């Protein structure tokens, strides 16, 4: 763990409204270095917009208050230019759809090295070598060839790995992933989750993983925070939140998943819901 304690992210009392419509209310979230922080919630819970606010990409007419603390400064107060310096360098983001995260007409090599050369003033060769190393790290086969290829020539899973490599190019201290595996097949998802866990352990990043799927968080997150309608309803360690949820909404979310496990407070409960339940077969 190389980063100083303030290398993580501390969100305190984040409140947002857009044209008098409340979007976020008093959101508190701590994203420490060296761990994967899971942020869960359904559509409209505000989890994605929280992430966008961290990188300063919230809607322009949003009124925001609160603190997003990183390395001692409040990101909310930052001017555009200062935020531009941080974005992509200190704080990187990976989105749900890898195909729309890349420019269709530029090679992967160009897209991987562009921002690194800008932020870190690397030479073309240095940037290329770093890109190759990262592509190897994220297990994209044949990195040399990959640099020459274009986004449409990759499968969804591989492209998401490239997206992660791109995010890591400038050695960020914070990595935010918004539904990174939602659009991917389950076996591909498993590979990406494994990769994320490995990266978090090796690089000491502060990782914020946002998803609607609690099972995903159960696999990789260290802590889980649940949001609903713009508020945080529960926060705790992965084990606690998933096996001993305090808030009824969290319980509801967990119960609605197909692969439930018996909870101590629930007594006898089927491990998996069998088809016999609804039709008396």
């Amino acid at each position, binding site marked *: 763990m190389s980063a100083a304690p303030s290398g993580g992210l501390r969100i305190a009392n984040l409140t947002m409204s857009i044209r008098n419509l409340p979007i976020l209310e008093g959101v508190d979230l701590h994203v420490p270095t060296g761990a994967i922080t899971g942020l869960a919630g359904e559509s409209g819970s505000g989890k994605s917009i929280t992430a966008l606010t961290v990188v300063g990409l919230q809607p322009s007419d949003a009124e925001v208050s609160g603190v997003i603390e990183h390395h001692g400064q409040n990101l909310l107060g930052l001017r555009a230019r200062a935020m531009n310096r941080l974005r992509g360098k200190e704080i990187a983001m990976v989105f749900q759809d890898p195909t729309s995260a890349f420019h269709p007409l530029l090679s992967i090599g160009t897209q991987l090295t562009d921002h690194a050369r800008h932020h870190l003033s690397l030479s073309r060769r240095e940037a290329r070598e770093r890109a190759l190393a990262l592509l190897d790290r994220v297990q994209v086969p044949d990195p040399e060839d990959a640099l020459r290829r274009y986004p449409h020539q990759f499968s969804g899973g591989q492209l998401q790995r490239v997206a992660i490599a791109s995010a890591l190019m400038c050695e960020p201290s914070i990595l935010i992933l918004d539904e990174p595996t939602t659009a991917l097949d389950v076996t591909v998802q498993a590979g990406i989750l494994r990769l994320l866990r490995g990266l978090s352990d090796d690089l000491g990043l502060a990782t914020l993983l946002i998803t609607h799927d609690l099972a995903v968080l159960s696999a990789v997150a260290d802590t889980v925070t649940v949001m609903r309608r713009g508020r945080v309803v529960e926060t705790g360690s992965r084990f606690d939140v998933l096996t001993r949820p305090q808030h009824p909404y969290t319980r509801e979310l967990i119960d609605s998943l197909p692969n439930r*496990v018996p909870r101590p407070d629930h007594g006898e409960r089927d491990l998996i819901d069998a088809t016999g339940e609804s039709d008396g077969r």
Partner: protein
Amino acid sequence: MAAELVLTDVSIRYKRHGHRDVQAVDHLDLRVAPGEVVGLVGESGCGKSTLARAICGLERFQTGTATFGGTPIVPLSLRRRPASLLPIQMVFQNPNASLNPRRRIGSQLEDARAANPVDARSVAELLSEVEIDPSAAALYPHQFSGGQRQRIAIARAMAVGPQLLIGDEPIASLDASLQAKVARLVRDVALRSHTSVLFISHDLSIVRLVADRIAVMKDGRIVEEGPTEDVWNQPQDDYTRRLLAAIPVADGLGRLPG
């Protein structure tokens, strides 16, 4: 009079510009018996969607025979779909794309009812069955959430009085918390009308909740098929085992899937 879907040795091959041909469906056999819920599981590119579209007549089978209730399945031409094939209906993956955004949902349900003059339930009944307030018939699709739109799409398909309902990844675009609910709704609504279901999904754990039988598809072929609990508990094929191993479980233990 219930009908059975019988696919024997069917294939579909695509031509692509500048690429090799794609064998989307490769000499496949599949049956869906009346009143049965069959789960077709596979990952992207396995051909399951192509297969679903072909059963509806949106693609052409190049080999083998495909019949429903004894009637051969013919591709859709410029003419209206033949009445004998109307009992095959589909629910699509994307809830935002499957309803006409400019028409009220009540009208869209009426359109579907018009295809079923003999037997159709009222719009109000159809909506209640999918747990949507009947008074919402006057609203437009954008006024509903994704999960609700999907339920309306199910109601529309059911309005036709289908004998086979195909769900092409009907829950993939929904939140995890809604997926099980909507999947079960598809099963319940269909079985109540003695409609059989071909439930297509890449998510084995959801399919397990609703299917009587599971067929696992890979590269255009079915690699494993059997009663749900058998496939789940004693998978015979390697690929099936890999799929099962990749499913994350919400047990809080931090076990990496796969």
